[in-house]
């Protein structure tokens, strides 16, 4: 089969549970060999999206294409090429590590015993230990070992690092890094560990309330959004909020805004349309940008201005 243009192509994905919409017209695409970090606060719909991608949950609407195949009709073939590390704990508590490996092995045509042994050694997992007695870090590593031993083309990790101590986290990331370095394995991981995402991801997508707020290459995202800090003249409030503003706040005379595509023209316009004394532009880290996207999304557009006025009035 020829290599598809996209390793993952999700369009118009919806999931409703009763009246609530957990995933709302989500579109995501991942180039083969690249790493996408899916970000969002708890309850944003990340896990639900990943579970639909893994065929564990049926979408209300939308299409999912994985490695050039349609998930609705070719789920079994897709499963052979995908490794999944769920966020939930391991089920087979009574089995030993070795037993679990022997149990999973026949499910995959491409299982690689050498790779499995290498990972077992690297993660220092003892084959005869009971699953029930493993620490959270060890369980996560075992879960990754099972996902990587059949050398999947796509690796899906749901909150892989949450609750792991720094040493276990390092081991886990090292296991994942080998795939990233191969350049052929596509990786999708959800996380709120922004430090790790900014170090590992090629692209990021930020979700909130079931929707994707932005989906971009990470370096492009960090270079296009900037924090603008303007000092307002005495007794004045912002008059015109620039286009491309994702979040803003007024505190005393300081007007802070996070804006897309900040250039000289935008700054000149901001100066001419508002009564400000000075303007400063600063770069943002992913951590700060993520907060601004979420905070901005929590404030509806029509209320943004009023809210800014209230905050200014209080001081």
């Amino acid at each position, binding site marked *: 089969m020829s290599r598809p243009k996209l390793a993952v192509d999700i369009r118009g994905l919806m999931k409703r549970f009763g009246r609530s919409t957990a995933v709302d017209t989500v579109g995501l695409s991942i180039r083969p060999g690249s*790493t996408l970090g899916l970000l969002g606060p708890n309850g944003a719909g990340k896990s639900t999206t990943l579970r639909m991608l893994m065929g564990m949950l049926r979408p209300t609407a939308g299409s999912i294409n994985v490695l050039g195949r349609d998930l609705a009709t070719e789920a079994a073939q897709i499963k052979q090429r995908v490794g999944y590390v769920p966020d939930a704990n391991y089920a087979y508590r009574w089995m030993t590590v070795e037993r679990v490996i022997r149990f999973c092995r026949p499910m995959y045509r491409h299982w690689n015993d050498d790779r499995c042994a290498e990972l077992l050694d690297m993660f220092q997992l003892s084959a005869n230990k009971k699953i029930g007695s493993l620490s959270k870090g060890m369980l996560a590593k075992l879960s990754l070992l099972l996902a990587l031993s059949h050398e999947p083309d796509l690796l899906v990790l749901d909150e892989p690092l949450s609750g792991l101590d720094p040493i276990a986290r*390092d081991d886990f*990331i*090292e296991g994942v*890094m*080998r795939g*990233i*370095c191969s*350049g052929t394995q596509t990786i999708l991981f959800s996380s709120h560990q*922004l*430090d*790790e995402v*900014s*170090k*590992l*991801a*090629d692209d990021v997508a930020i979700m909130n309330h079931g929707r994707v707020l932005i989906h971009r290459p990470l*370096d492009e995202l*960090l*270079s296009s959004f900037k924090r603008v800090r303007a000092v307002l003249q005495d007794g004045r409030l912002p008059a015109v909020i620039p286009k491309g503003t994702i979040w803003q706040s007024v505190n005393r005379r300081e007007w802070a805004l996070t804006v897309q595509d900040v250039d000289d023209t935008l700054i000149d316009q901001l100066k001419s349309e508002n009564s400000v004394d000075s303007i400063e532009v*600063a*770069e*943002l*880290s*992913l*951590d*700060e940008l993520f907060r601004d996207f979420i905070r901005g999304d929590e404030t509806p557009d029509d209320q943004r201005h009023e809210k800014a006025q209230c905050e200014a009035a209080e001081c």
Partner: protein
Amino acid sequence: MIIDPRNSNPIYRQIVEQTRDAIDAGVYRVGEALPSQRALAIEIRVNPNTIQKAYDELERLGVVEARRGLGVFVRDRKSNAARGKTEKLMDAAFRDGIVEGLANDVSPTRIRELFESSMNSSLSKARKRQ
């Protein structure tokens, strides 16, 4: 190398800066190879494409030289970076002189003459010292 993802200085630039510091401190000497893209990626747990971007930048700055299939090697910095800095200083000094002359109605031809004569006297002084 310690990468701080919360720093608004992009990660690739942090790698560039810390690699330059490491070269200055003598961790990597002229002619030696930097760690491979893959090895450094695993060591500092950073996407290998970011390492590549940092190494490309170091090459653009003349700090290292990439040899196809072999790796990335530290260049002789006296012959590039240091010289580049010196030339910048020289250029600034020349400019000051030219601007001063033009502002006081000294003709471009006369400025060139003066440059040649101060060059000649400096060279002869340097020869005498040897």
